[in-house]
């Protein structure tokens, strides 16, 4: 049962990844120019050199040929070569990905650690003034754009000389509050829906103690949307921090991607997009599996 479920999800994921890579290849093909277009304008580089470079990068081959080259290379874990750095994309992306993951995992972990107890607590005391304050401030925070928030934090950090702590703490300081309000909002809503259910009211009428009510009835019921939310968080591990990385100057995938996009470094763009799509798919898969283990209704069906 679990096996067929997993197999179906895996099939789905693979299909999706194939389509994503094909799509990005097609798009890049449609775009005017390639990595060497600007070099063509340089009079000091002879046409022969250019031709040999084109040949070496495989730019003279047809689209399907290049795609198959890329698929083979991806299967070996190389994901093609970067024209600008003249090295396998994997070697280029790997350290960048690790630093992005370091940043996002830290701040997401932090955000969850704050949001989960706070959200449940607010839902448990729905309508009280701390809850209202929380709801209001969540809405307020939600409407501050990420870019503006990042700039604001940087200015504050510079004015108060906090920047000396630099690097990771600063980036985390920016990214955590950015992801916090949405989490908080969803967690509170999820718990509220669960605690308003008829069987919870029935249990309360039966005289079940508040403690037992929350831990046995409400929270397990609320776990379903929370797990989906967690899956989404995991899915966004690679893609949620692009802007923050660029603003703060964190050497993650974001700046690399921007640079590659600007230089039309074909395989790097495809590699990063595919990688983040893989993470997105993995996040959903993870959420599905967790749901499978936590929710008896899915197991039955």
């Amino acid at each position: 049962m679990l096996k067929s479920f997993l197999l179906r999800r895996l099939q789905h994921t693979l299909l999706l990844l194939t389509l994503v890579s094909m799509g990005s290849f097609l798009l890049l093909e449609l775009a005017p120019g390639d990595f060497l277009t600007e070099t063509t304008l340089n009079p000091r580089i002879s046409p022969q050199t250019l031709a040999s470079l084109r040949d070496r990068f495989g730019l003279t081959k047809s689209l399907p040929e290049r795609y198959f080259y890329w698929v083979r290379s991806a299967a070996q874990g190389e994901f093609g070569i970067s024209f600008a750095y003249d090295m396998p994309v994997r070697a280029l992306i790997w350290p960048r990905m690790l630093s992005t993951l370091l940043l996002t995992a830290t701040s997401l972990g932090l955000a969850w650690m704050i949001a989960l107890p706070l959200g449940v607590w607010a839902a448990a005391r729905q309508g009280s003034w701390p809850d209202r304050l929380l709801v209001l401030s969540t809405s307020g925070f939600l409407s501050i754009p990420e870019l503006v928030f990042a700039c604001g934090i940087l200015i504050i950090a510079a004015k108060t000389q906090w920047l000396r702590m630099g690097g990771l703490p600063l980036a985390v300081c920016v990214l955590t509050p950015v992801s916090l309000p949405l989490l908080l909002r969803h967690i509170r809503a999820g718990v509220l829906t669960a605690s308003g259910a008829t069987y919870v009211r029935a249990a309360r009428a039966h005289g079940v103690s508040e403690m037992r009510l929350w831990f046995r009835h409400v929270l397990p019921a609320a776990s379903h949307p929370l797990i989906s939310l967690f899956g989404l968080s995991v899915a966004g591990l690679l893609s949620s921090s692009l802007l923050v990385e660029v603003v703060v100057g964190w050497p993650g995938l974001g700046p690399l991607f921007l640079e590659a996009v600007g230089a039309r470094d074909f395989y790097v763009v495809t590699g990063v997009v595919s990688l983040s799509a893989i993470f997105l798919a993995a996040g959903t898969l993870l959420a599905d599996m967790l749901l499978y283990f936590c929710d008896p209704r899915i197991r039955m069906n």
Partner: protein
Amino acid sequence: MRDRIPLSLAVSGLIVLHGICLFAGFLSPYDPTEQNRTLSFAAPARIHFFDNQGVFHLRPFVYNGNSTRVPLRFCVDAHLFGVAAPDRIFLLGSDDYGRDQLSRLLHGGRISLVGGWLATILSLGIGVVVGTFAGFRGGWVDEAMMRVAELFLALPWLYLLLAVRALLPLTVDPETTFLLVTATIGVIGWARPARLVRSAVLEAKERAYVQVARGFGAGSLHLVMRHILPETRSVVFTQAALLVPLYILAEVTLSFLGLGLGEPAPSWGNMLAPLRQYHVLTSFWWMVAPAFFLVPLCLCFQVCADALTKSNTPC
């Protein structure tokens, strides 16, 4: 009735913000592209009523570089306010080329807002057409379209936007760039509204009155126009309230990263672009001026979206 207070506040806030940007030409003191190389990064001017000696003046004034009083003049040359010619007034400071930030903010707002609305209309237009068609036709058409939509949703949005934008020519004239950026943002976002419209259509299609109308021989056109499209209205409005700020921010992000609207035409995004240089960010705080508009704008839209969502879900 009390629930309506935030909504009406938000709507009037939106009207005011849009109005300000609409009348940018009158409200702003200068042309947004007018440069003053000698006055780059001038700090915001403070308006005084009392001079250094503590004497009150009815006409507000600012101090210029030589600490002389420069009185404000109102309603001159089709501008709300200004100062006599050689002096300049920069209420929100000036940027690296010495251009007035306030004028750029208001004129840029016009471009950013129009861009956001256009992209939203485009997205919703595609979404409604595709969603209605897929939902109403059903079968393999529906299946195929929703698979494509899923593909669009499976990609990280910002990455996709950047990748597609980078493929399009970067150095073209401002109008073309504006249209290109807007169209890219709008087209990439079609999937979510399409899915939501589709599910609304699927629900509406099964309604008893649609079935009855089929019973007396109503054609698809009649059913879609008279019964089904009105049912998607609430979805469309909610999505609009969510998408407009999102797309304004998308333009801001693209321009900030240097892939959006280029100089010299102002937009909120390229006004923020100098902040990528660290020394600008730390020394000239007034360069974040677009934030003064972006935050209230997003807040108002969000309150509207919340109110719309709430009114659509019966409790």
